[in-house]
């Protein structure tokens, strides 16, 4: 089909342009807008018989009404793919920015992807060892899971994401390919991530998409989709295990809010559009395993909770879609615990089917459950101690307080370059549990008590 080209637009409203008297435009098709030899990309978000509304990814800055050439390409937004994308760096729309030239593509794919047929999914069960005790022991990551990090400004989520990506390995010792999408990230943060991977040599197994804080806001709508399209290609076409890090999804949601505003939509909670849940789901659900395919897509989205508020729409809706969450705590960070993971509000929903007999170590489920129960009791006692003073507590409560401190300092706390095996993690856990009387360990089977308690 011949490309349709027009000169001039009818109206510009924020990142949207409106074209009147256009014919045969398709919903969702890509549009190129060219002015003064500068090309921008947009897509059609509403169309009727003679009008099209186009969202411009790079924003409309500098566009004039009369000048731009507008070309309708008749296809959805796609990216070029080939095995050579590994080791490369792209912008937020999937165009190379590392001076290594264009990708000679063997395939191009629609960045919106399509929904995996639920009947075609394979239920994820394989343990990923991240080397981080709090995660492996109590919030186990499973291959094909989507497990976000809920963080706050100034907390070390970048560090943790990098550590997990660097250390992640499967039982089979297979390595992961990493797809990293920076979404509205500060330059320093993005550099920290890329530099770390370069130093460890992991970069050759990695694809990076960069939309930095200074890059166009609307482009952010596309960035996670571009990254996931690359991930799906690596996983389901090339059979690789892919770990996708989307950082920071709060920036993505804010971009969506901005766009929704320009479209004049009715705002929902905190001004975010009512379809934020479905929109986020169209990103997060692009994780998993598929029957008959070797690869997998595991997602670790990172988001910063505005005001550390977990009920804010971004973490809230994310938590409703993902398979758990890893919550970072400002208080632990203040105590110099790294990674400052607060295990109580954290959760990995897929761990129940991927740990224990036949998967990890037999005592793993009991140990995890006991640590949760005991630590949550510690928190109760702490709030009581804050009122009546530690000295007046019964002895058993004092034991719990000691356990709590040791749990944070020895179990949760570890070094950025320290990768613990699962055995090490569970052994530390048993040392800690041995600080408590045996009668307190109601969640552990007798046989494991005999094997590990005070051993």
């Amino acid at each position, binding site marked *: 089909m011949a490309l349709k080209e027009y000169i001039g637009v009818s109206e510009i409203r924020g990142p949207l342009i409106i074209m009147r008297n256009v014919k045969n*435009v398709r919903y969702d098709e890509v549009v190129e807008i060219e002015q003064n030899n500068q090309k921008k990309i947009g897509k059609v978000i509403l169309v009727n018989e003679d009008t099209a509304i186009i969202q411009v990814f790079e924003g409309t800055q500098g566009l004039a009404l009369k000048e731009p050439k507008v070309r309708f390409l008749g296809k959805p937004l796609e990216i070029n793919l080939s095995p050579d994308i590994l080791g490369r760096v792209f912008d937020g729309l999937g165009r190379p920015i590392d001076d290594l030239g264009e990708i000679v593509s063997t395939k191009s794919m629609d960045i919106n992807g399509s929904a*995996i047929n639920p009947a075609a999914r394979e239920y994820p069960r394989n343990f990923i060892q991240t080397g981080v005790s709090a995660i492996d022991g109590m919030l186990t990551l499973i291959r094909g899971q989507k497990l976000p990090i809920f963080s706050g400004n100034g907390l070390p989520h970048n560090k943790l994401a990098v550590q997990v990506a660097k250390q992640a390995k499967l039982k089979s010792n297979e390595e992961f390919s990493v797809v990293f999408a920076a979404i509205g990230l500060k330059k320093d943060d993005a550099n920290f991530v890329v530099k770390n991977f370069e130093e460890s040599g992991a970069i050759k197994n990695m694809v990076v998409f960069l939309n930095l804080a200074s890059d166009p806001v609307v482009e952010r709508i596309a960035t996670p989709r571009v990254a996931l399209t690359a991930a799906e290609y690596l996983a389901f076409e090339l059979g690789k295990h892919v770990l996708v890090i989307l950082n920071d999804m709060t920036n993505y949601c804010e971009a969506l809010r901005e766009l929704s505003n320009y479209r004049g939509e009715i705002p929902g909670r905190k001004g975010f559009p009512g379809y934020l849940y479905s929109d986020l789901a169209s990103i997060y659900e692009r994780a998993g395993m598929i029957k008959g395919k070797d690869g997998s897509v595991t997602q670790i989205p990172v988001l910063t909770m505005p005001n550390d508020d977990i*009920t804010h729409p971004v973490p809230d809706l994310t938590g409703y879609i993902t398979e758990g969450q890893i919550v970072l705590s400002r208080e632990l960070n203040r105590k110099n615990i790294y990674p400052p993971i607060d295990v109580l509000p954290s959760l990995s929903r897929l761990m129940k089917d991927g740990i224990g007999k036949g998967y990890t170590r037999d005592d793993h489920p009991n140990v995890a459950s006991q640590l949760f129960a005991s630590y949550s009791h510690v928190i109760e006692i702490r709030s009581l101690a804050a009122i009546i003073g530690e000295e007046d507590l*019964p002895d058993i409560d004092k034991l719990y307080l000691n356990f709590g401190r040791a749990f944070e300092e020895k179990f949760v706390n570890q070094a950025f370059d320290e990768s613990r095996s699962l055995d090490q993690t569970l052994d530390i856990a048993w040392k800690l549990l041995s600080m408590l009387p045996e009668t307190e360990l109601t969640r552990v089977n007798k046989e494991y008590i005999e094997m590990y308690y005070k051993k």
Partner: protein
Amino acid sequence: MKIREINGPVVKVRDAQGVFMNEMVRVGNLGLIGEVIGINGDMATVQVYEETSMLRPGEPVKRTGKLLSVVLGPGLLNNIYDGIQRPLEELMRKTGSFISRGVDAFALDTTKYWEITILKQKGDVVSGGDVIAELQETQSLKHKIMVPPLLGKGKIIEIKPSGSYTVMETLAKVETENGIVEIKMYQEWPVRIPRPVKKRLEPSIPLITGQRVIDIFFPISKGGTAAIPGGFGTGKTITQHQLAKWADADVIVYIGCGERGNEMTEVLEEFPKLKDPRNNVPLMNRTVLIANTSNMPVSAREASIYTGITIAEYFRDMGYNVAVMADSTSRWAEALRELSGRLEEMPAEEGYPSYLASRIGQFYERAGISENLNGTTGSVTVIGAVSPPGGDFSEPVTQSTKRFVRCFWGLDKNLAYSRHYPSINWLTSYSEYTENLEEWFQKNIAEKWSNYRNEAMKLLAEDDRLQQIIKIVGEDVLPDDQKLTVIVSRIIKVGILQQNAFSDVDSFCPLEKQYNLLKIVIDTYYRAKKLVEKSIAISQILPSELVSKLLTMKEEISNLEDFEKVEAFLKEHFDKLDKTYA
């Protein structure tokens, strides 16, 4: 008809003379499935159940002349459908692992032969709902082939002999006032219209779930309604899965409405392996799955709960007890909101359309126990998850749902954080069926069922008050009778209310066992109380080994004999104390 405008899933169509509301249409060159949701002059508004990307104004729209309907017949069980009843396994065979567009597939397997027993003869007079034939659909269910509900009265003028047929076969011809009607093995029914019954009955039999906090404290009746509200990760889905596994229903319709793909896969992998405790048949044999996950089109999500409940009503009409799980009704409400927004309707609270409450009401009103047209009794129980933003129950969906359901199982974030599962809060939850069902429990399980239950509830309420005090001054300073309340309440909370869904022993707890656990704990309380009154030290009355035994009974005891042993042990302990301090 031609497309005039495309705005996400909402498409405006011109030259639409003659279409009717809720008519199914095929949109664009791909023939995407859509439904007419508004008509204005010769313009119609259509909601499209598939992605509309790359559609173009001017593309054709075709009428089907049918309301959005489902196909009802043998082969529903064991199957998984999307929100508009397209069979997902079949779609996968046709187009691979990802869902593509414009693909059509008949909801039932048309090639399979079913062994049918014909129950009527030529000359018999039949009317809507009458059973003319039956077949063993799965090991667990006899499928009844019924005369469509609206047929009125008629005489069978032709009927096939018993034998092996596919669903496409016409089994009988019936002569009615309005001419001759062919009766096939399947029938169609528009999803938005409830299937008729003869008479509604009073709920009086519990749906037994094997979950202690529900059966003992907040029971639901067959034909009842319940809502499970809770913030993310508090256990809505696990609770729904538990009910789908263990509830004593004949048929389960599980609707994954705007939730995770992996949760449906989990059911698909697990249910064929799990056995129904009552007949030892794989659970999948009684299950129909509707999977319209969060990343599938929102408009089909809106339709999915109607698809599900219509299938449930069909099995009810055969005289079965059906339980419908909808996870999550909030996602369905959000689909309503999104579509309403695209239609530029005037929003009411939080952007939801003003008809939100009435739609929720209409949905739950389709639950009930009833006398069917054919004289059998059947029921549809509806259990809906609600996902309030920020876990705040004051929002419109939770509030509107509360008006229409009679069980409220409120999940509590703090319980979930401390890994107390199921995290159903025993103070804010309620069941309006408790009284209706008392008689059943007393007759079928134990005369003193309600006494023990009420005593436990009283203790828990008192404990809540004491916990407020403990938070400020610690437990040590409480007088002994209050300490006793706290200890026994802890045993109730940990030893009875907590129930690990993943435990081999405790995932399902038969009513007799529930009763025994409750009885032992409360009897212990009664005897201990007498000793406390004599000022005997608590540590002597309830030594930690004894408490620990009560806490772990649920996991360690599976038969009646062992209960007797525990009772004997307790009796000895208390008799000795009684004697010492007589």
